[in-house]
């Protein structure tokens, strides 16, 4: 199935700086379709042929979307695009890129050569072992790690067990330094469990809404 066939459109995963020519990332897209770039001025949306439909939030497909962005990220700085953005045709992608060009340019400056790293810290089931030092631990983790990051974002504490849930935007060449700091903090607070994840595309540091605030893309 190709993008020209009825009911088929182009699903966009992320935007990268233009590699200068059409680039293929292989048949890793939804339905085994080829993931490739389309040139738009100095940027290139990364896409594959996919049915034009409402993309329901489905764990497997969201994971696949993230995996594809992760693959692109190995070689390029990426501006992640929300899950489910499918466009009926090439023209609509160009219109969207044109409308969002300034915002894309600005966002790319922020994320270029940087990655997102996630840190979650949880307390043991028996909360008493922290002796009410939750606030102190959270602030120690946060302040120490902020010093090694370009930017940071505290995320929702969706569980009573969570002491810290944060994302950090870190220069690619400072990832090792940041990792060492996370390890040292983990050793300092042995009673806590730390999860360090990434590198991710900077999902928490890019928020561009172009033409439509609704998920599902501009059709």
């Amino acid at each position, binding site marked *: 199935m190709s993008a020209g066939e009825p009911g088929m459109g182009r699903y966009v995963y992320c935007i990268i700086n233009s590699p200068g020519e059409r680039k293929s990332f292989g048949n890793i897209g939804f339905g085994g379709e080829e993931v490739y770039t389309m040139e738009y001025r100095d940027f290139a949306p990364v896409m594959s042929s996919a049915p034009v439909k409402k993309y329901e939030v489905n764990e497997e497909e969201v994971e696949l979307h993230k995996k594809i962005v992760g693959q692109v990220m190995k070689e390029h700085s990426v501006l992640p695009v929300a899950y489910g953005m499918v466009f009926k045709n090439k023209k609509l992608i160009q219109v969207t890129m044109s409308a969002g060009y300034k915002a894309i340019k600005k966002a790319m400056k922020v994320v270029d050569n940087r990655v997102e790293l996630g840190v*979650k810290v*949880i307390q043991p089931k028996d909360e008493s072992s922290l002796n009410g030092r939750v606030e102190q631990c959270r602030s120690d983790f946060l302040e120490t790690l902020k010093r090694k990051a370009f930017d940071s974002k505290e995320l*929702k504490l*969706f*569980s009573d*067990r*969570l002491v810290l849930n944060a994302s950090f935007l870190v220069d690619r060449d400072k990832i090792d330094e940041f990792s060492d700091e996370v390890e040292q903090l983990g050793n300092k607070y042995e009673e806590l*469990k730390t*999860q360090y994840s990434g590198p991710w595309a900077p999902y928490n540091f890019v928020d561009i809404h172009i033409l439509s605030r609704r998920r599902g893309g501009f059709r």
Partner: protein
Amino acid sequence: MFIMDDILLRQLGISIPGIDTLWTIEQIKNFAHKELYNPEKIKSKIKENRMLFEFGEITSEEYERTNAELMRKLKLAEQGEEMNLEVRTDILGAR
């Protein structure tokens, strides 16, 4: 006015059995409604379940089981939101 009277009586330590029962039922219903049909709370539970699995605190079987149950609840809650279940008739007839 009716509610004010009821609260006033309650503060004075006076209870009227019939009204008390209705009031209690209404409170339980409100609580159950908020707990069961709040999509945000269910989404938090889904994330928490995933997190506990990633931290190795529950097995993959436990994760799958709880996740399936929570996804079912979320679907119900979202359907409930679409039907706008928040708008209900007050059984005490205060409105």
